[in-house]
């Protein structure tokens, strides 16, 4: 069983939704990314999504765009991220999902990437701009290496598309909470519950919800009907606000993730 599936099983026993945290690798440098991940794990984060920065993050809001730009200032590459995963894996079993846009993976070489990602100890891959229709080329290698293929579903997704995604997905389904780009939002659309229900009635792959989660209140609400709470921009904002005060950033991340993690308990 893969680490992701294992983790969901473990949390189900604790009656807790998984807290999955996203950060952009290399923002502002790869060493700090590693520290943050260690800190998050210590504060109750259940899985990490490591973003590979891209020059044209079409589906991201200003916060993650800015993180990408900072990461690209020092040319953070797929190789750099894979090394980071290896280092994390040498001391931790936290599930790691690699998250990004297709071109950097494509440029690295899809077969080589899948192989190296598995070697480094990654567990799943989510490519934002790779819907099932285009996912074959990378997917075949990912699957062969035994990594999970994580897909997005959106409020706009039709029944047909849910079907198609479920046929291809493993690990979990990343349910996008809104029609919109990434970014913390004070309010969320709780009609999501219905959509999650529709997914769950067809498959037992776990469903996580992200795009906009920024408070314990939201996390509690989401945790009540889904398998995972995914937080991204809210964390990036802490990194951004902290600037060079790295110790302070780590403390803030720690207290923020602890609070959200607690809220994930049902």
């Amino acid at each position, binding site marked *: 069983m893969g680490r992701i599936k294992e983790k969901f099983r473990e949390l189900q026993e604790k009656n807790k939704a998984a807290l999955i945290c996203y950060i952009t690798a290399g923002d502002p440098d790869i060493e700090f990314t590693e520290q943050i991940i260690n800190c998050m794990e210590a504060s109750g984060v259940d899985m990490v999504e490591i973003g590979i920065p*891209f*020059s*044209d*993050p*079409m*589906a*991201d*809001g*200003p916060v993650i*765009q800015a993180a990408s*730009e900072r990461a*690209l200032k020092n*040319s953070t*590459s*797929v190789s750099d991220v894979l090394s980071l995963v290896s280092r994390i894996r040498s001391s931790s079993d936290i599930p790691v999902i690699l998250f990004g*846009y*297709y*071109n*950097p*993976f*494509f*440029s*690295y070489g899809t077969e080589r990437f899948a192989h190296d990602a598995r070697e480094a100890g990654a567990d799943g891959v989510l490519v*934002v*701009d*790779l*819907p099932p*229709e*285009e996912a074959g080329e990378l997917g075949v290698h990912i699957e062969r290496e035994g990594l999970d293929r994580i*897909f*997005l*579903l*959106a*409020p*706009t*997704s*039709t029944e047909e*598309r849910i079907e198609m*995604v479920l046929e291809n997905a493993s690990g979990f389904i990343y349910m*996008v909470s809104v*029609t*919109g*780009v990434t970014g913390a939002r004070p309010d969320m659309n709780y009609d999501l519950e219905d959509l999650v229900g529709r997914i769950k009635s067809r498959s037992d792959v776990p469903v996580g919800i992200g795009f906009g989660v920024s408070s314990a209140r939201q996390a509690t609400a989401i945790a009540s009907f889904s398998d995972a709470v995914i937080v991204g921009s809210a964390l990036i904002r802490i990194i951004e606000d902290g600037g060079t005060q790295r110790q302070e950033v780590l403390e803030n991340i720690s207290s923020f993730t602890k609070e959200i993690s607690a809220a994930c308990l049902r």
Partner: protein
Amino acid sequence: MGGNNRKYSCPDVGGHFGEFGGRYVSETLMPALIELQRAYREASEDKTFYEEIEYYLKQYVGRPTPLYFARAMTESLGGAKIYLKREDLAHTGAHKINNTISQAILCERMGKDRIIAETGAGQHGVATATVAALMNKECVIYMGEEDTKRQELNVFRMKLLGAEVRPVVSGTKTLKDAMNEAMRDWITNVRNTFYIIGSVAGPHPYPMMVRDFQSVIGHEAMEQILAVEGKLPDTLVACVGGGSNAMGLFFPFIEESEVRKIGVEAAGHGLESDLHSATITAGSVGVLHGSKTYLLQDENGQVKGAHSVAAGLDYPGVGPEHSYFQDTEKVEYVSVTDKEAISAFSFLSEVEGIIPALETSHAIAHVRKIAPSMSPEQTIVICLSGRGDKDIHTASSFM
């Protein structure tokens, strides 16, 4: 429209031209692309859709545009007979309107009440703002902040037409980033918004749809050249940014392999410099803005900033079907530098009294190289994709 090539059958149902094209977008947009594809297919089966397009192309855009025999240019170069397909005479001053009017009619059929677009030179933005005004739609245009400065006149035009122009300050602040921002808007407002893409780029069905809408250029040119010359042209030449004017001219001739087709990219300061936009000539395969195509990118798959004196060519990608044409050798791609383009800009103005867009000047510049060694029995058709009023300040600062 665009459907007269029996043998050529790209794209497939998923929008692929060989390995190129496709729909590399976030899940949020997939249903919208599928809805658009369906609406376009349905419209294509409806005679009234084409009648309406034809009505507006004739009455509003001013089609057919002339195929003008450029006697003075021909004499000055002393070789092949040169014809100019006068898209500069189309309403708003470039070929862009052929596409925007058609997409706007589709938008109206789909019942969307908001139109967005990205723009580089501002020509597509103006053409979009124009049809949005005509169809009484809310309109937002994304434009790189850099471009809002160098194409200020077009910004004024868009505003006057009632559009909101949003300067884009992320990334390179040019067309590429405007397109990112437009995509983000579309992701957010997908339910009521029609995104009018301005070239044969972006995810399926855009490259196909824009190709079909622009093919009117080549269809007219074919009929016109047959009427005056009694034979097909020897060579077609067009500039390639995203590639829509070139596609519009080339596509109806695509199965005519004896007609040489040359797409001219922007070599900027030269291919050896890093300041160019020669995507096909000097790029490599990748994925950007929803499709797989040739790209300017670094060794990590990060997209590089493009450069061209012509804002409308200043784009690191290219329509995926052009990538396919490159690999299947249906079209040759070459490039000319900023300097050559500016010289061609003056040349055509002085010789023919026609001020071409700086984009178009790239095509003119290449013809200056090839026409002299061709015979007077041979003919070249250039797509004169737009007029240069918008570029006069830029060009004069170089002259």
